[in-house]
């Protein structure tokens, strides 16, 4: 919980600087978050490599790992289908296409904008950013109350990069590889599922 609050603090500080235009120019002009992510992935790798339990877990995971992306796809579809009828001005199918971005906001918003409309593209952008940020903030609580797979499912496609470090800290390093595989599977599936939902 304390960890999440500190993370939220840093995120809020960044947003405040971005909105008020007070961040130094060099910080806004180049997207350094990409490099921060690279550093982070290296450190997470070192963490996994130096943890003998994590390495052992890779051997015992086998085919069960694939149950996790299936869980995420079904859970997302169910959750969105249940909440969409309460919203006005958006069909269940449109909402499900947004949900099928699984946090991968850059790609899903572009596909949706091209295949459907500008406004739904913006909804996809916002919704999937919210999914990523919520996972970053809530992963420790999800792992505590809903089991070690919950943060991975919440992270969706981002479980392979941006949310992997916090998942690895919350669920344990033995789930880091499962998280990586889950993210890769969903990242590959995003374009297919989104365009399928928009074309039926």
């Amino acid at each position, binding site marked *: 919980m304390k960890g999440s609050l500190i*993370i939220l603090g*840093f*995120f809020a*500080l*960044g*947003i*405040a*600087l*971005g*909105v008020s*235009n007070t961040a130094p120019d060099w*910080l806004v002009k180049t*997207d350094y*978050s990409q490099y*921060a992510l*690279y550093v*982070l992935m290296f*450190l*997470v*790798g*070192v*963490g*996994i*490599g*130096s943890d003998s339990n994590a*390495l052992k877990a890779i051997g015992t995971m086998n085919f069960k790992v694939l*149950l*996790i992306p299936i869980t*995420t796809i079904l*859970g*997302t579809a169910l*959750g*969105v289908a249940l*909440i*969409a009828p*309460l*919203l006005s001005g958006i069909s269940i199918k449109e909402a499900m296409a947004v*949900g099928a971005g*699984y946090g991968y906001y850059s790609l899903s918003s572009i596909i949706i904008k091209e295949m459907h409309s500008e406004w739904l593209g*913006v*909804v*996809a952008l*916002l*919704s999937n950013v*919210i*999914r990523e*940020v*919520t996972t970053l903030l809530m992963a420790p609580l*999800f792992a505590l109350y*809903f*089991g070690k*797979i*919950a943060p*991975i*499912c*919440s992270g969706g496609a981002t479980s*392979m*990069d941006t949310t992997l470090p916090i998942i690895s800290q919350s669920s344990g390093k033995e789930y880091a590889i499962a998280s*990586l595989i889950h993210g*890769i599977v969903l990242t590959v599936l995003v374009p297919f599922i989104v365009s399928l939902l928009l074309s039926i």
Partner: protein
Amino acid sequence: MLTVVLIMISGIIVGFLVKSKKRLVKGNDKLTTWAIYALLFLMGIGIGANKTIMGSLHTLGLKALAISLGAIAGSVLLGWVTYKLFFKRS
């Protein structure tokens, strides 16, 4: 995407090689936490300075928020079921 995976694999190899150096391993965990803070801070700047995102928050934001909450709640709850059925060691 490939870059990220390759960087992580090289990290795993380095980690495996320095495994016996306890202080290094401990320092790595601390560094990871701070790298997460840095990432979120930088992401915040990117989002805050993005006019498309900030400008449409009040119109499309509520729809987006509802969809995210549905998606997260659905996958977290189903993830709980999958964990209990297939992963939890009794």
